[in-house]
């Protein structure tokens, strides 16, 4: 069993890397990269060399290549020797001027730039200045580019996936007292692991928000978005607080223990280090430099929304689908079975948008349920229609499969034997048929639970509830490479884990099944 699990996990990791690698190749090499400018209004306004440079910089942002410009190279080089006075260095100015003319070949600094990057496998390009008479139309540029190799890309991606916080995170020479230690947190009246010099102040803490214990010791990175959530990591986007800001009576960190409260929307446990000058407002609230805090929203996170809706819909599906499927099997070819079949066929054949609208028309018209989350006075009610919309097809699917499995079992030899032995219908069913039919269902349970995390694309969009479902679809249309890769990683990991868990659950449920395959 252990050997099997080890092999299984290893193979899973290999397939994981293959999938991610394939998506990276597809996204970065096989799709025409110029498509990212299709709806770029700034690109349209640029022309000549500035347009080319804008394109190169965008390509770098989107992760296609690394770009090195001669002007940046010169700036860094002379800053090392001259500090901030680099701009008045004669050699620096000479090199800058040489970029514009043909004498750039002779300039030592520019030749150095060219040699260095050619050696590292870059392509060095030059865009000559464009003038019309004495008027400057477009500046000259000297730059080097290198497409990122797919193996390098995969390696960098996975090496950056997990990061840990250390007491050296904060780059402030004035911070001398650096530590990580347990302290008593007066805000939550529980112990907390607190750091100084780490990015976050509270590394392990408790509060009254799910999952009640939180950590900032290590972080998970799925990749940075280029177009949809510019600059933010997809993992953060998924668990980001949403909704309108909720202000609660809280004590400022500086007032902890005094009982003086203010109505404020910050979550003081999320404090990160502020290396800038502290404002008056911050000085009245905080007693250290950890003053940048997140705010609390009244909604669930993206992951939360998708998960809640998915889980409740799944529970409803199992609650209704399984018994109804059994009912249909037992009343095979009778009225109940016929009605059930009609429902299954209808729900499978109708496009989801059609029955979502039909259903919501009934829900909003007859029962006055809210349609869009944003227009709902009582926000909880806004989840009813989406959950029911999600549950309907799952109920149909489970009904169909349960009915099939039960019928199969009903026709098998051991059932006929048990009946001949005198067991009642009910006993045969509950002790034997149900348990055997259930084997097939059990395998899918982890998948369903984890699948709730993937979100529902159409339902979320139609009802305006923000979940993870649309992350991938929106990323594809906006060529957001970072999100495409991040979602692929996320979904692949979920699939692999659900399959493994499903198999393990199966062995626990049915002792006849053994993973190692031996006798």
């Amino acid at each position, binding site marked *: 069993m252990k050997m099997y699990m080890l092999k299984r996990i290893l193979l899973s990791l290999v397939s994981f890397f293959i999938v991610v690698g394939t998506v990276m190749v597809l996204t970065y090499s096989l799709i025409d990269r110029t498509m990212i400018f299709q709806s770029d209004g700034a690109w349209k306004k640029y022309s000549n060399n500035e347009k080319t440079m804008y394109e190169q910089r965008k390509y770098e942002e989107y992760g296609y290549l690394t770009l090195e410009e001669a002007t940046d190279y010169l700036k860094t080089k002379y800053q090392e020797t001259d500090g901030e006075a680099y701009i008045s260095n004669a050699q620096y100015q000479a090199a800058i*001027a040489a970029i514009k003319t043909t004498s750039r070949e002779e300039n030592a600094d520019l030749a150095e730039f060219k040699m260095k990057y050619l050696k590292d496998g870059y392509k060095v390009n030059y865009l000559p200045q464009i003038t019309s008479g004495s008027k400057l139309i477009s500046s000259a540029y000297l730059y080097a580019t290198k497409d990122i190799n797919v193996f390098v890309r995969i390696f960098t991606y996975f090496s950056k996936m997990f990061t840990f916080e250390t007491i050296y995170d904060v780059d402030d020479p004035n911070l001398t007292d650096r530590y990580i230690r347990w302290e008593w947190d007066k805000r939550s009246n529980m112990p907390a692991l607190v750091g100084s010099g780490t990015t976050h102040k509270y590394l392990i803490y408790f509060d009254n928000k799910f999952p009640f214990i939180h950590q900032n010791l290590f972080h998970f990175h799925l990749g940075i978005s280029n177009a949809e959530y510019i600059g*933010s990591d997809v993992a953060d986007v998924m668990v980001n607080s949403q909704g309108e800001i909720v202000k609660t009576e809280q004590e400022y960190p500086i007032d902890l223990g005094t009982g003086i409260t203010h109505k404020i929307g910050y979550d003081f446990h999320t404090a990160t280090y502020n290396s800038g000058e502290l404002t008056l407002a911050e000085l009245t609230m905080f007693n250290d430099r950890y003053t940048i805090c997140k705010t609390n929203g009244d909604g669930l996170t993206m992951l939360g929304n998708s998960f809640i809706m998915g889980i409740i819909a799944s529970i409803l599906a199992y609650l209704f689908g399984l018994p109804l499927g059994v009912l249909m099997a037992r009343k095979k070819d009778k009225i109940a079975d016929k009605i059930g079949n009609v429902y299954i066929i209808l729900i499978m054949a109708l496009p989801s948008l059609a029955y979502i609208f039909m259903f919501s028309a009934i829900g909003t018209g007859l029962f006055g349920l809210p349609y869009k989350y*944003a227009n709902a006075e009582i926000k909880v009610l806004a989840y009813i229609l989406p959950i029911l919309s999600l549950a309907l097809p799952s109920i149909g699917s489970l009904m169909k499969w349960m009915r099939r499995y039960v019928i199969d079992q009903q026709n098998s030899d051991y059932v006929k034997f048990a009946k001949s032995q005198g067991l009642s219908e009910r006993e045969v069913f509950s002790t034997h048929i149900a348990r055997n039919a259930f084997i097939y269902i059990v395998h899918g349970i982890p998948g369903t639970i984890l699948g709730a995390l993937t979100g529902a694309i159409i339902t979320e969009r139609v009802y305006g509830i923000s979940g993870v479902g649309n992350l991938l679809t929106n990323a594809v249309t906006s060529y957001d490479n970072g999100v495409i890769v991040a979602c692929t990683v996320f979904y692949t990991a979920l699939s692999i884990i659900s399959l493994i868990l499903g198999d393990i659950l199966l062995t626990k449920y049915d002792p006849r099944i053994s993973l190692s395959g031996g006798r």
Partner: protein
Amino acid sequence: MKFKSLGVMLLTAGAVLGATSCGGPRGNDNPFITSKERAEMLEQWEAAFKDSSKSYNPAKYLTDKGYTLKTDEYRTTYSTEIKNLDPTQTYRQSDSAYLCNFIEGLVQYDNLGRMQPACAESWELDSTQTKYTFHIRKGMKWVTNQGAAVADVKAGDFVLGLKRAVDAGYVSYLAEGVVKNVIEYEDGEVEFSQVGIKAKDDYTLEIELVKPESFFLSRLTYNTFMPVCQSQFESKGEDINKSTDTGNNVYNGPFYPTTVDGTVKTMIVAQRNELYWDNEHTTVDRLVWVYDDGSNPAQTYTDVKNGIYAGTGLAVSTGTLGLAKKDKLFDDYKYVTDTTATTYFGGLNLNRGTFEVGGAVSKLTEAEKILAHRAANNLNFRRGLLHCIDRVKWNEVSRDKEVAAFNLRNTYIKPDFTAIESAVSFTEDGKTYEFPAKSTYGEILQKFLDEKEAHIKVEDGQDGWFDKAYAQECFAKAKQELGLGPNDVIKLDNVYYAPSVGQTADHKALQQLMDEGSNGLVKLQLIEANTTADYYYSGYYADSGEDLNNDFYYGSGWGPDFNDGSTYLDTFRRAGDMLTTIGLNKIFGGEEAPEAPAAGTYGREADVDVYERNLGTFEDLMDVAAAETNDSQRLVKYAKAEAELLDKAIIMPNTTEGGNYAITRVAPRSVPHVNWGVCADMLKNIVQIKASVK
């Protein structure tokens, strides 16, 4: 109003009926603003626009008519979320539509299109006409997304804003070559402290220009010149732009966002900023944008009727027009939405250099290529072609029939782009031109076009070019000049994206209309592009004019950035950005002429020759206009140049955005009325009536 159940709805309706039947003056219970009332308000607006002694007060007009004004919130739908919190980092109108309500610049426009002080309470221009000094209003605050003040707005915030705009590069083009040393800073020659924007002290800002520019102030209403709070940037760095947490940035405008995450596809909410300097004139307490992907227009329409949203567009294709007619709302309350300043146009390729891009391959013979080139360069042929297309019929393919004409445009510069401040009168070639103050650009342009007998009507919302008789006249002359017989045809290539049903229909319609309109003379050859790459590289992505793989190309668009004719017309000067769309490379001088082709084969001419032949007179008029320093005179001269451009049939302006049916509770022109910058989306002075739900 949001009703929790049928029962509550009935109860409330009963209460309302009861209340209104109990004596007292009867309030106006129209569900929307009527078309008549709207027209009356627009008349009053026109009067105030032309005569500054008159005023326009939509709030008073509506309350006099018995309406109750809605001041608690303005709720509407959105489909694109906030992607950037720092306006200097974005060019997207979808971002600016929110940010212009949260962050305010030096100046702004009001609902009569007049520039008003904003963060700058006054300003002066020095004697060299290149240095502006702005006096920043004291006591303005930056607030967080919880409404708490964190810092004062200072002159240094504008310096930081421009630096961030230039460093990021998305909107820096508005300052390059305009503000002193911006280009030199980008090239690494100078530090930013040498750039022509300085904070003399906390409340005095100086901006120095490269050369005098009479319309410079109009640039200030765009993202390039928006402020960034210095202390916020010090503590948060680049994070201030991350819209996943609105707490990352701070705001100095009339509203601040109160939803935590601006990127969600759920809702975006903003609250009145009590600390805003002009808060007493803000007419609404809350702004709510609700995500709507447009998949259920019937539900959205019902929500509008029930008073949830302030208004909605009506279209046949979504079924909402039919619903409005059924509900008897269409006739009394409909209006046509404003058109925008963006112009989409088409034109002939004057100097074709490419006949094959991927799978999009031309089938023209050499003789046909030569003929197409000669025809494109023949003035009468161009005139004939551009005046023979029935654009209303063409537009019906992609738009509902009822509104097919509403978004047609006939000029490059939007007719009501701007108006002259002072009267202009001058004499030229024995003719005297007189334009009273506040004449709109369109009125001036029409005069010049009529003088040339160009057969063009300038107003939006009609086909001002289609004139079959005039087209036939021109074709007859062209045929003679080109030496064509009665049965000869001229073949022109046009690449279309075949997998798109809509595009195929659109291009096929054009082909048919050209054939009909030219009585069979012009045969448009539709070239299939089966990949998006082939389609785009044949047109939109063509690097330069010679890469344009079309004989007739349409679909390019251009929008204005500031208050001057050059913002549109410069695109067709010798080094203009839109020359690619008519097949010409940019001309900088000193280009080598291409080799003469072998006898009987087609070869490209020198761009400078083609330009001179077709646009030479236009360029001369542009020189005259560019040299003019008086704003009003300048606009008139640009109008003269555009008249030349259109009369020479260089481009065929085609469509614009907007021009749809809609019903609304929002008073017309209660928000800023301006065609450039971000102010048009500001909502602080919006006037809307309360919904009366029957």
